């Protein structure tokens, strides 16, 4: 049965009905060997209790667990707060941080729908209207026209706008702000320069900065925990000490080398910032950096100061105030240590947040040079400052481009030059570079797993990446051939791990994932054993 097309105005209607139900049959098909096996229902429905407690009338998925209001009065209050927030979003003073981009994006769209074809979520879902990049933008535009502009109600009628601002619209819109990874592929595609990813970002800000609505994993357990405890992982400076000594032992065990991981070394050239997720999930990445920098005699240090050992800045996804707080802390740590520069390790959003976005919240002695670590890695590998042997990496490798580093920062080639030089069986995913697809875990999704959201991000937002990975390895899909998806970003690794895991891709197809520096260290000739351990993690 053909589904009826959802229209923009439907977001305010039928409050008790779910706007969209997606089934496996709707979704974009996957290549071999996942092309067979039927269309199973991949997104588990919420339990009765969850449905009663939380808003889920958008698509039956709850990303941010908004409690249902208890009374009509509460709903009205929330609608008023939303409108107040919207006014602030459109004010040059309150929203100086993104006012220009927001206005341009709101005003320049000509509804050509070029952006739809660019969006992996829209395509993967089988072109569900509510996931179209322009859907949430159009809802917002119509609300602004009708409820903010003078004479709006009259002109809305003339213009044929059919939106109503009620709690249902707001609750659905809040969830909808978490059905876009802010990968900004649509913005790159837009001939007019309208940025639907930015509109998502601004909506999230309105909900967080005015209404206190944000996913727990990003706000409470994310930025708030990072500022109070030191890291969004919950690692305290004390716990960090133990982790580091464990890693030093691990390095010795693996390589026979006694390497001290430098901490709080004043006056070092480089303060290296890692996503603290690496300490817990992928310590080999941090170990690999230590081995490589030791071999290359680089003057570097980590920090054990609060926030100084966690590069993440989730603020960039949803809240300018939290963004500024964390960026300022990062710069303060570097200032205290008197380092020459901050180098961001393999974490995409931390790259964009600290090097680019926060550029204009840091001034004076906090304006310390900040850079990506990739050019340095390229220098070590391509200028042969380390002895490396590509034969040690003679297995199929493909490269994932983290949106934040590539499309959003223009760091396209260093990582490619490294893998081309070190991996004889390197093959690109298609498309790649600035045209890449998001892993599906962008903008916080990789760490969001409440209720049935993980099902959604594995089956919808990550679907395109899974397709690309499988396509890249079609000729070597036999599980006895070990394959490596190189993703130089912690969040992307987390998402790719979950994607591969849900299809048992390591056991069934021999596909493993990991970072970039691991490939470099794996090729180091003065290590006896290969550094990469082919086991699932």
């Amino acid at each position, binding site marked *: 049965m053909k589904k009826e097309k959802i229209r923009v105005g439907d977001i305010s209607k039928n409050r008790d009905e779910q706007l969209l139900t997606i089934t496996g049959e709707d979704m974009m098909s996957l290549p071999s060997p996942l092309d067979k096996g039927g269309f199973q229902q991949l997104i588990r429905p919420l339990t009765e209790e969850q449905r009663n407690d939380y808003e889920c009338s958008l698509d039956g998925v709850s990303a941010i667990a908004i409690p249902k209001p208890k009374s009509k009065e509460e709903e009205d209050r929330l609608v008023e707060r939303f409108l107040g927030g919207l006014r602030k979003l459109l004010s040059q003073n309150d929203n100086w*941080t993104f006012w220009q*981009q927001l206005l341009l994006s709101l005003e320049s769209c000509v509804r050509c729908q*070029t952006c739809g074809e660019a969006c992996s979520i829209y395509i993967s879902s089988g072109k569900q209207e509510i996931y179209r990049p322009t859907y949430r933008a159009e809802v917002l535009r119509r609300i602004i026209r009708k409820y903010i502009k003078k004479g709006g109600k009259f002109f809305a009628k003339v213009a044929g706008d059919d939106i109503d601002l009620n709690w249902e619209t707001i609750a659905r819109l809040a969830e909808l702000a978490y059905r876009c990874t802010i990968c900004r592929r649509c913005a790159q*595609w837009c001939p007019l320069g309208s940025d639907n990813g930015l509109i998502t970002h601004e909506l999230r800000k309105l909900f967080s900065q005015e209404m206190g609505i944000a996913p727990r994993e990003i706000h409470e357990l994310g930025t708030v925990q990072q500022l109070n405890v030191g890291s969004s992982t919950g690692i305290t400076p004390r716990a960090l000490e133990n982790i580091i000594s464990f890693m030093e032992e691990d390095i010795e065990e693996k390589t026979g080398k006694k390497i001290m991981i430098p901490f709080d070394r004043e006056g070092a050239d480089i303060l290296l910032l890692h996503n603290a997720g690496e300490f817990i999930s992928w310590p080999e990445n941090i170990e690999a950096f230590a081995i490589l920098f030791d071999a290359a005699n680089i003057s570097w240090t980590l920090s054990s100061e609060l926030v100084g050992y966690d590069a993440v800045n989730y603020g960039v996804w949803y809240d300018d105030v939290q963004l500024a707080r964390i960026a*300022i802390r990062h710069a*303060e740590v570097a200032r205290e240590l008197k380092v020459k520069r901050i180098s961001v390790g393999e974490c995409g959003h931390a790259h964009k947040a600290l090097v680019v976005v926060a550029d204009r919240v840091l*001034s004076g002695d906090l304006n310390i040079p900040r850079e990506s670590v990739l050019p340095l890695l390229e220098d070590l590998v391509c200028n042969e400052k380390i002895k490396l042997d590509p034969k040690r990496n003679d297995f199929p490798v493909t490269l994932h481009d983290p949106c934040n580093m590539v499309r959003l920062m223009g760091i*396209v080639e260093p990582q490619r030059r490294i893998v081309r030089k070190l991996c004889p069986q390197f093959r690109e995913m298609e498309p790649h570079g600035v045209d890449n697809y998001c892993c599906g875990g962008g903008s916080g999704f990789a760490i969001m797993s409440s209720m049935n959201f993980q099902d959604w991000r594995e089956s919808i937002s990550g679907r395109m990446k899974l397709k690309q990975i499988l396509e890249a390895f079609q000729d070597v899909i036999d599980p006895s051939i070990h394959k490596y998806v190189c993703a130089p970003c912690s969040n992307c690794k987390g998402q790719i791990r979950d994607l591969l895991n849900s299809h048992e891709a390591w056991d069934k197809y021999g596909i493993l994932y990991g970072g970039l520096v691991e490939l470099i260290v794996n090729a180091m000739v003065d290590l006896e054993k290969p550094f990469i351990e082919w086991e699932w993690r």
Partner: protein
Amino acid sequence: MGLIIIAVFYGSILFCVVASLAKLLKFAKAPLHLRWELYRGSSVYELTDWWTRPHVTSLAKMKSAALDILFLRDFYHRNRGFWYFLYLFHVGLYLLILWHLWLFICAMTIHVDAAPVWGLLWGHVATVLALIGGVGIFIKRMTDEELRAYYTPIHYVKWLFVILTLVEAFYAVQIYFDASMPAVMKYVRQQVAFEDLEMKFHPHMATAAHVLFASAWLIYLPFSHILRLFFRYYHQVRWDDVPNVRGSAVERKVEKLLSQRVGWSAPHIPHGRKWADFSSEQEQGAEE
């Protein structure tokens, strides 16, 4: 009647200039924003010590902008089906703008009898191209379900107006001026130089309609996306933006903005705090 048309026409020119300037000024005076740019390929961040390296020049940006505007490159690469008619329309439009410029200059500088015949061909070809493009887009917009869903009725009126304007212009030149370039040029000359007041106050329907259509477009122009496109390139919003270098003008602006109070009121945002107060000493001080 003639007086009204004169008032509308010259009023619309004035309005267009003033409103466009006001709009440009509004954007030019807008506060500096956080950086959120995109990249079309490799950037300076691929280099070690990038802050010591030259950034993208304005010339490179202008070149890219010119190519985009001339060929509608993004539509060509990303949405070919839409590009065909859109491009015809734009080529027609660009040619028509040039034609009008040429006409005004010639009318004031050469003898009207010397008006070249190819001028007529130029004008007609441009009009026909724009017309084919315009009708094509209008039909596409009407019939394509995907396009229709987001296009509110008022926008179709705009395209109808485009088509009407073009048809009327064609009629004026071909029928009213009898396809004679000297006649067209003579009319323009008389109007621009206020040589024939009789005609100004008692215009023929064909020229009056053309003038009224032109007025409507002049009034619309400041609200159109054309003006906004300007900022896409020249105001450093979309493509690689200017880094905040110590001691630079950008830094001075940043400092001013950071001294503003934060106006948002969620629980995690302390009331009355300035952006610059988010340094750790100040936050700790405020908590104690």
